[in-house]
């Protein structure tokens, strides 16, 4: 199962839990499974079924490009982070 890192921004919803093992082969199923354990987290991460515009996902250090369809490896690290832009 993937290791999902729950940032300080999400911890009000997780009761302070900062890491959790979650089953799922895509970000969509990872988030659905997170929601079962931490109600409300799905709304924080998704909007109209896709990632909110102010949320990015990093899987094993790489920013995911396929939104909720992004595949997740068995032992992947998953982070929900702010999106990065530049000048």
């Amino acid at each position, binding site marked *: 199962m993937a290791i999902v890192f729950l940032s*300080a921004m999400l911890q009000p*919803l997780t009761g302070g839990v900062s890491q959790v093992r979650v089953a799922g082969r895509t970000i969509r199923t990872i988030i659905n499974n997170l929601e079962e354990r931490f109600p409300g987290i799905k709304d*924080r991460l998704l909007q109209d079924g896709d990632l909110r515009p102010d949320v990015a996902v990093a899987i094993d250090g790489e920013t995911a490009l396929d939104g909720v369809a992004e595949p997740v490896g068995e032992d992947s690290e998953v982070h929900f982070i702010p*999106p990065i832009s*530049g000048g």
Partner: protein
Amino acid sequence: MAEATAEYKVIGTRPIRPDGADKVTGRAVYGGDMRLTGMLHGKVLRSPHAHARIKSIKTAKAEALPGVKAVITVQDFPVAEDRMANLGEMAVNVKLLSNNVIAADKVLYKGHAVAAVAATSPHIAEEALGLIEVEYEVLPPVLHVLDAMKDEAPLLHETMTTTELGQKTDKHSNIANHMRFLLGDPAQGFREADVVIEREFDTATVHQGYIEPHNATALWNEDGHLYIWTSTQGAFVVQRQAAEILGLPVSQVSVTPCEIGGGFGGKISVYLEPVAAVLSRKAGRPVKIIMSRIEEFEATGPTPASHIKVKMGAKKDGRIVAAEASLMYEAGAFPGSPVGAGCMCIFSPYAIPNMQVDGYDVVVNKPKTAAYRAPGATNAAFASETVVDELAEKLGMDPLEIRRLNGAKEGDRRVDGPTFPRIGYLETVHAALEHEHYATPLTGPNRGRGVASGFWFNVGFQSTVVINVNADGTASLVEGSTDIGGTRASIAMQAAETLGIPYEDVRPTVVGTDGIGFTDVTGGSRTTFATGYAAHEAALDVVRQMKERLARRWDSEMEQEFEGQAERATVRITPDDVTYAHGAFKCAKDAGKSMTFKDVAAQMARMGGPITGRATSQPRGVGGAFATHIVDVEVDPDTGKVTILRYTAVQDVGRAIHPSYVEGQIQGGVVQGIGWALNEEFVYSDSGNMVNASFLDYRMPTTLDLPMIETVLEEVPNPGHPYGVRGVGEVPIVPPVAAIANAIYKATGKRMTHSPMSPGYVLSKLLE
């Protein structure tokens, strides 16, 4: 001219840029050069107040002035939806974006657009602005982040509530967002530390200072289609933003990017384009608007002023074990400062087990901030790199040695969680330590040497490239990436390398939204990386098609050679049997068969027709960038003036495609950083009036102020790119402010906690 390497024939050389002749002869077409039949000239009426409620706007007198063809206010714009949308590099609230383009019920900074006029001459338009009557209820402005954060501060947006750690609250405040990043146990880390340093820093509002002002020409055609010509870092971003603000489908908006005279992040948001469009619709004629320099300062996005607290703790052996920071960034009149990026960058050069970083996005009565080269990172590095310097001093360590001891490397975790891939930070520290500059003693009174490091993420995003093969064996490369810093060359070079033809045989052209697939902005240090990636893929597509055609031709020749023979069944030529190297295709099954790229191009018409390679990219494998800088300064003890004596910038550049342009990017970033460090700031009166809105009074460094900026290119190829490219354009602006502050300390014994370190500020510190 540099020599080609054994590995590459084109990459790593320094050819002349394709747009060079147009630029040096003045023939390049910028937005200000636009001339359309029947074109009108637009001017924008801007608020004289930093904070006021608009009670009424009367335009009748202006409309009656001969020559005036249209006058518009917010009433001429569709009501924008209050929702987030991806309209550029980042999510943007459509309503707030629209309200920044033209004020709705309130003006939120001096210079905020209130109305606009189109007339037959700029002078008539200017005169008409004076005839528009606006009644304001003037409100108290709030101009500093710490004032704006107070509970009793005047509110810019009465309906805005604070988002606290990701959760909407009911608290009405100028704090739009409070975010936090946490790693390990900082409290425990500080308990274990032998030395703890805690300091507070302020940075001023700074402008990108591009030479060419914002401009836009719009034609709202009778068929309902909107055409825009503009100076922008991304035509598709203008298309999306304009379409959202004007309530149009993107297919109804065509944007052509003109040549661009600098952007540095400041030409991503739209300001004039929707205004010119609405004027054009009302007047029935094309309209051009060009900003004055005063408008640039007062009404476009600078980088935020900030207040930053940093606390760091280290063991006696120099290992940094804990770090905390609070970053309070001014967003300007609308939420959306780069404080998130600042938070994620502030400690990134170091592997620190325990970190907490809090960020506050705060609105104030100043122009809405925009991106500026590594947005948010320079402010942050000024604070953290000064504290690292002080830690080294307290521990009796060399300031570069403490960076080498604690420097981040592959596998180390950033404060926002993800681990680093292969990065070259330690290589930059090693190179700085071993550089002749660092080894040479600095002598003389009032002189000091400082060092600092910096990090920037870089981004990938989306690009499209098309390569058309010409019958003479050359190639036309079509791209959507505005060329700001020589990317026509760096992209064409990658295509040429992959095609196996000379650089001079690839002619790149930048086109607008009707001419190429979606391409994100030239920004985020992404263009040579991501558009270059697409160029490589498009070139591979060309080679693949040529191989297929040659396989068919050579296979048919085999058919003839083996006619009626049994061996024919075993001798077939497929594309896999065609090799390509050094401009020549060869048949692996028949050494006698070969054709050059030029031969194939010349015979395209008889070999299946035109050949066009195409590719889109949204690459992963973005390589973050690190830099370490060394600077020597001399401080005049009587005036506080700081002179830069010598400056060396070391940077991990991945593979330098065109080393001259990489060096140029580094030198440009350093110079902007020096300006930020020593002179540049928006100076406001108490009423919120910027009092130095010209290049005479907003002092940017010139060549007369600076020595040659020496560059050291540490090439640590990025494994995520076929040619090892890392973005190079942004990180060089990150270390200079801190490096100069540390150098001034060495020269004077006074720690700098405010930028700019202008003569007045330095003198005040000397007199303490």
